[in-house]
């Protein structure tokens, strides 16, 4: 797919977001990935041009970060955390179930190009282990059966809600968000869930609170 003039303009705008254009390289690569479903050599060259670097320099960056893929990812990116916490708490079984369901191994697309399966690293959600991601949106506390069902529903085109985020769109849409974070979805879903509130609720139930501002300072504490 050729890079269009409007894409080139967008790349220039991303460059202009920063004091120096090269800083825009990462969002630029997210943008071309959102448009092409992967980071192609043409996409890299277009980013390089906008960032004012050589194609080799942009290639060096694109190949350093694991989220940039150099094969078609397909409609949905499916990640399963298999780092120690998630993996040992069941992520390994989730991954195996998905691998069997999708007929594909690590970091590869399914034959029909619908899904990409990847053993991913820690998602900063160990409290919600085992964690799976669909298009990088959280699907917390999954089981093998739940994970397979998510894939089934995605395949049937049904709406799947992230456990802490909006309804699943697709891989390209998430990549678009990474280039343009203001995607209008901040109010969607329930990003603050029970596990994030567990301590607060225990504190409230137990009448525990942070101490107030000690005298003689004026009571300017942020009120509740």
């Amino acid at each position, binding site marked *: 797919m050729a890079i269009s003039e409007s894409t080139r303009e967008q790349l220039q705008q991303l460059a202009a977001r920063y004091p120096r254009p090269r800083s825009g390289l990462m969002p630029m690569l997210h943008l071309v990935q959102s448009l092409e479903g992967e980071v192609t*050599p043409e996409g890299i*060259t277009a980013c390089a041009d906008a960032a004012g670097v*050589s194609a080799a320099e942009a*290639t060096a960056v694109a190949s*350093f970060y694991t989220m940039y893929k150099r094969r078609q990812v397909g409609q949905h990116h499916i990640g399963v955390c298999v780092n120690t916490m998630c993996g040992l708490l069941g992520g390994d079984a989730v991954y195996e179930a998905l691998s069997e369901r999708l007929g594909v191994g690590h970091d590869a697309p399914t034959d029909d190009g619908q899904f990409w399966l990847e053993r991913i690293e820690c998602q900063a959600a160990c409290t919600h282990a085992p964690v799976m991601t669909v298009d990088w949106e959280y699907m917390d506390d999954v089981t093998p059966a739940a994970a397979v069902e998510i894939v089934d529903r995605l395949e049937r085109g049904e709406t799947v809600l992230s456990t802490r985020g909006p309804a699943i769109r697709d891989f390209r849409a998430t990549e678009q968000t990474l280039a343009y974070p203001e995607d209008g979805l901040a109010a969607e879903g329930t990003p603050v869930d029970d596990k994030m509130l567990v301590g607060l609720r225990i504190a409230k139930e137990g009448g525990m609170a942070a101490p107030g501002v000690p005298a003689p300072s004026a009571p300017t504490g942020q009120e509740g």
Partner: protein
Amino acid sequence: MTVTNNAPSGPSPDVAGAGTDVEVAVDLITVVVDGVEMRVPKGTLAIRAAEQLGIEVPRFCDHPLLDPVAACRACLIEVEGMPKPQPACAQVLSDGMEVRTQYSSEVARVAQEGVMEFLLLNHPLDCPVCDKGGECPLQNQAMSVGRPESRFTGAKREFEKPINVSAQVLLDRERCVSCARCTRFAEQIAGDPMIELLERGAKQQVGTAADEPFDSYFSGNTVQICPVGALTSASYRFRSRPFDLVSVPTACEHCASGCSLRTDYRRGVVTRRLAWDDPDVNEEWNCDKGRFAFAYLNQGRIESPMIREHGSLRVASWPEAIDAAARGLATARGSVGVLVGGRSTVEDAYAYSRFARTALATDHIDFRARQGSAEEAAFLSSKVAGAPVSAAYDDLESAPAVLLVSLEPEDESPIVFLRLRKAARAGTQVLSVGATATRSLGKMSGRLVSARPGDEANALRSLDDETRALLGQPGAVILVGERIAGSVGAASAVLELARETGAALAWVPRRSGERGALDAGALAGLLPGGRPLTDEQARRDVAAAWGVEAADLPSEPGLIGADLLEAARDGRLSALVVGGVELADFADPGLAVAAVENADFVVSLENHHSAVTELADVVLPVAVVTEKSGTFVNWEGRPRPFGQVFRDALTMSDARVLAMVAEAMGSSLPADVASIRKEMGALGPWTGARTPAPDTAPGASADGVVIASWRQLLDSGLMQEGEPHLAATARPTVAIVSASMAAALGETVTISGPAGSVTLPVVTGDVLDRVVWVPTNSPGCHIHADLGAVPGTPVQLSAGGAA
């Protein structure tokens, strides 16, 4: 003169702000290395201080000319007061600091051994078939720091091998230790970041973009500085073992940058050439032409003398050929023109100069086998010939501003480019008078001073105040290229500008032999050492040195340039002596061919078959650079003497052959390099009045679309023949025009000149409107022959290849 007298080992002391002659105040600090107290300049790195004591700390990523990265960790040392071992390559010493290397610190020794074990982990054990084996820093340091046996029993990393990072440079990734020397060289030194570290972690590897090879003019340096056998050149790969080679220090014959080289040979054949460490000139770098273009030495050589008989050449014995040449030239004595090639050694050029004035009794001599003007000759005679160094590499580095006039250093003097880039990175403002702001100018952070081809003189005379002020700063330099000859009034304007601003002025010819030939007097009106032919005293000096009567020397300046060629063509000169000249190099190749054709008698001194040998009456084969010793004088005026690589070569230098001809004519010439150097030294440089400077009114650019052009470093040059891998890294032959012109033209353009047309792909560039840039002599575009054009020639453009 500059060759043997006052041989400048550094810059001229009369240049402000520069100089090894001047004691520079340096802050010294006291440090202790392995218990030895020493004083070093503030800012010295621990690894350099250790070197001064003869202590070699292991290292791979460290390179004195590259910014430290401290990546390989091979050089870990103990620093007093620091809890962890520190990399010596990045440890800046401070006053009182105490450091201990592996020789006095167990911490350092153990740390280094650990790193060495890790480095060898994934390194293949293919030393017996690796080109680096025998001269490999990893191999050597593994022997001194490594374990005898590996504890690693796992599988080593594997890669498909090798991959081409360019047509010339190959990469065996499994050998790479990720030291990043090559990538740092490409980015920092050459300004060509076309190779990069790709991927990450254990998969990290050097590579290029998918569709952009590492076609840097300086790519070969990465092969040389690779501390393992990861990078190899197509031309040397699997050709030889380092310990089977004989190495000889040499000087590069390709251009006037003046690189010191090392030539390695085996069984009478050059196997490779490397950049030699010469901090004053090329530092540790050279260009790919100097490194890889040497196949010509062995190809297409003329094996024996030849004489024309019944219209065709036949092999002759040396005595027969010398006799034939002497007889023919004696007949034409006084009416002979001498054309000297631009890559003659100064000794050979001197021989031509003396041979012309004595044996031939002629002053019709010119070394400029290219476009050359009388104004340029006057400029060179008045300002450059035999003159002391006006600017040197170090001066470029310290200059606040450098103005380039008709000079594209990356193509025309690559080491000048590298030094200007280094200077620019440190703050030097580079300015270029020309019609196109090239990518190369960008690498020097340079600014274009716009001038249409032909309008250079006007541009120089109407520089804005800001630019003038830049050049008025102490240490500012103006560099003038060979193409100034093609712009009327430009040389005069440059002289004026230098006078006004006080900027140092240096001439940067493209070819290695031009400065030496100028100094040797291989130009009409000019005797050796910058002596005006018309000056009585000068002629008396020279006559005395040559053992002739002053009255016997020509006293009227002879013909030069096109005048000389026209005279031969029209029969006003009856003979020509041509040494190492390619007729296609002249601005009007047709005129040059006609001159040689029409001359009654032509003697050609050549090492390769050429257009001249095709037409000559006597062909005398001469030595190539590896078969003789001699000296090139680089643009600085710095002698670059070199010795004979193949000592048993049977070929003779131009000077020796000319001496034989002279003897047969009853004249005499010194035949060997030592005698010539002695004679030139005795003569010394001229201190009297110089020939007058030119004062030519500014020319004007032609109307319509005009040609801008220069020779690319890698092009159709004959000395690049026989090295297809190098040729494949040359820049594509394209026509570069402004965006608006490109929009009107489309993908290809047909350019029509007086002699014909060429059709080339169109590339958009930062070029003035109504100017089309094309290479002078590249495959598919030889502007002299194909178009009948030189820079400034008006041409017709038509779109889309429709002629």
